[in-house]
C-alpha cells in the first residue's frame, strides 16, 4: 500500500494530478445545479411579479 502511495518517489506529482482531475471535473459537474436553481428562482420571481401586476391592474 505504501508503495502504491509513494509511486516510486513520484507520489506527490501523481496524486496531485489525479486530485486536480477529480476536483475540477466534480466542480464542473456540480456547478450547473446552482445555476439551475438560480434560473428557476428568477423565473418564478418574474412570474409572480407579472401575475401580481395583472391582478392589481384589473380594469383599464
Amino acid at each position, binding site marked *: 500500500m505504501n508503495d502504491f502511495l509513494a509511486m516510486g518517489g*513520484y507520489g506527490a506529482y501523481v496524486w496531485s494530478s489525479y486530485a486536480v482531475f477529480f476536483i475540477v471535473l466534480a466542480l464542473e459537474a456540480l456547478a450547473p445545479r446552482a445555476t439551475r436553481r438560480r434560473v428557476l428562482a428568477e423565473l418564478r420571481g418574474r412570474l409572480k411579479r407579472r401575475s401580481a401586476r395583472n391582478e392589481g391592474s384589473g380594469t383599464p
Partner: protein
Amino acid sequence: MNALTLWFHKTGSPPTAYRLAGRLMPWCYGVGFVLGLVALYGGLVLAPRDYQQGDAYRIIFVHVPCAWMSLFAYLFMAANAFIALVWRIKLSEVLAMAAAPIGAAFTFVTLVTGSIWGKPMWGTWWTWDARLTSELVLLFLYFGVIGLHAAIEDRRQAARAAGFLALIGIVNLPIVHFSVNWWNTLHQGETVRLLGPSKIDASMIWPLLTMALATHLWFFGSVLARTRIGLLELDGGKDWVREIALATDGAGERA
C-alpha cells in the same frame, strides 16, 4: 414530412430536448464514472511501471484524455456554432454554449496535470514550446467565448456572437494537434494513433482509451445538464418552462 424529418424537428423542440436530455444525463454521468474507475484501476494498479519514467508516467491516464477532450469539446462547440449560425437552430446555439465551460475545464486540467508531470520529467513547470503554448491559447479562446456569451443580454444574440468567435478560433485546433510535428518541441510526439499501430504497450493503452471514453461520457453528461438550463433560459416565457418553474417550487426546492 417523413418520419425522420418529423423526429428531427421534434427533438429540436426545446421541451422535447429538455426531457430527452434529462433522461440521458444520469446515464452519461453514471456510466462515465464507472468506466473512469475501471480505467483508473487499470492505469494505477494493473499497468506496469514505465522503464524510463517510473511511476510518474501514470499521470498520462488523466492528462491525455483531458487533452483529447479539450480538443473534442472545441470541435463540438464549433460544429454546433456553425449549425446555429447557418441554420439558426436554437438547440445548436444552446449546445454550443454548453460545451464551452466544460471544454475550458478539460483544457485547464490538461495544462495543470501536464505542468505537474513536466516538473519531474523536464525539470520545469512550464516552457513556451509549441504544444503548451497552443493549448494555453485554446484555454484563452474558451474564456473569450464564455466571456462574450456572458456579456450580451439577449441569449440568442449572445450565443451567435460567441459561436462566431469560436469558429474564428478554430484555426488553433490544427496548430495544437500538429504542433509536435511542425516544430521541435519538448513535448512528446504522437504515440497513440487512430489508424495504424500505436507506439504504446497494450497494458497501458486500454486504461487510456477507457478513460478517454469515460471523459467523453462525462462531457456529454455535463453538456446535457447545461443544455437543459440553457433551454430554460431561452424559453423563459413559454408555458413548458413556467410549469417546470412552478413545479420545482411546489416540490420544496429552496430558491
